[in-house]
């Protein structure tokens, strides 16, 4: 889970726009990483410690932001970044094209810091949920891999109730179940068995004592 400052990639070839973005996303809440062309932005998103959120100018030398969105989405990946396109293009057709390319949101230039932060924070929330979900799935997969299954047809001895395990070994029913599930046993004696086995044995011992 992403704690501490939120790393955000800022990609725009205009230094005035970059400065405005930096001014809107100040530490300690945010940790902006700036680049000034599309290829650098794309590389940053592919790097090992890639920011999970990026603000990309729609049109940049090297690679336009919209193309970065397309590529990042094509590549998939376990933790896809949240991508915000920065654009002058406020027309519905352009916005739709941005979303179809894989952008999660867009901000129209010139932007106001408050709106930008609000949109970034939506991204932060989504990325957080995504990471949480990915963490849960990973934990679940791990648990599933280690889970002991108790299912199918079990060959059991009709007389002593031992179970033949996968290794063709006849095993006590409780040890078999303990191995194949999270169940544990505490041994006790039921009333029927007490009557049938324990009572006669006790009687036998008493008799032996008396005789002695």
């Amino acid at each position, binding site marked *: 889970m992403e704690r501490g400052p939120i790393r955000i990639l800022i990609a725009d070839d*205009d230094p*005035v*726009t970059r*400065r405005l973005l930096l001014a809107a996303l100040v530490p300690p809440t945010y940790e902006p990483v700036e680049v000034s062309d599309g290829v650098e932005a794309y590389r940053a998103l592919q790097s090992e410690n890639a920011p999970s959120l990026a603000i990309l100018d729609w049109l940049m030398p090297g690679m336009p932001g919209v193309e970065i969105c397309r590529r990042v989405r094509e590549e998939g990946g376990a933790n896809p970044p949240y991508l915000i396109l920065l654009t*002058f293009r406020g027309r519905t057709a352009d916005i739709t094209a941005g979303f179809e390319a894989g952008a999660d949101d867009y901000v129209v230039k010139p932007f*106001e810091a*408050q709106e930008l932060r609000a949109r970034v924070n939506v991204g932060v929330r989504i990325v957080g949920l995504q990471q949480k979900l990915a963490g849960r799935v990973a934990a679940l997969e791990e648990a599933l891999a280690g889970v002991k299954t108790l299912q199918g047809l079990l060959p059991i001895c009709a007389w002593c109730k031992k179970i033949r395990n996968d290794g063709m070994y006849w095993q006590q029913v409780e040890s078999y179940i303990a191995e194949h599930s999270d169940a544990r046993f505490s041994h006790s004696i039921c009333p029927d068995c007490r009557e049938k086995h324990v009572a006669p044995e006790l009687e036998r011992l008493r008799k032996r004592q008396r005789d002695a």
Partner: protein
Amino acid sequence: VGEGGHGDTPGSATDKSPVDFSIALRNAGGDVTLLIELVGIFLEDLPGRVRALQRAIRDGDTGDVRFVAHAIRGALAGLGATPAGTLAREVEALAEEGRLDEAAERVGRLTPELERLTAFLADSRWREGLSGS
């Protein structure tokens, strides 16, 4: 100069002033210090951009014309420099459509407008009006 903007920016900017400081300050979150810094960044960056734009026009490279015009436009939008911004937008749009001659003609109008803007911003007196805002 600056009157060829097709009037697509209703109200705010007057043709007299190259910058609408109400827009500029709003973009800077009301932070005058930040605005002064932005102007400094802009003045430093712009000459290289203008040269790149003219070179791209000369080379007939509409892709580059588009990129450079777009970057200039971004800065102008941030600074509320609407008259020049409108021209930069037109240069970008014409370059996108591959209409190099018209883009060149528009660059011919954008350049003096940018000169007017830089002359205005290079004179620190523009700051005087901001102190009370």
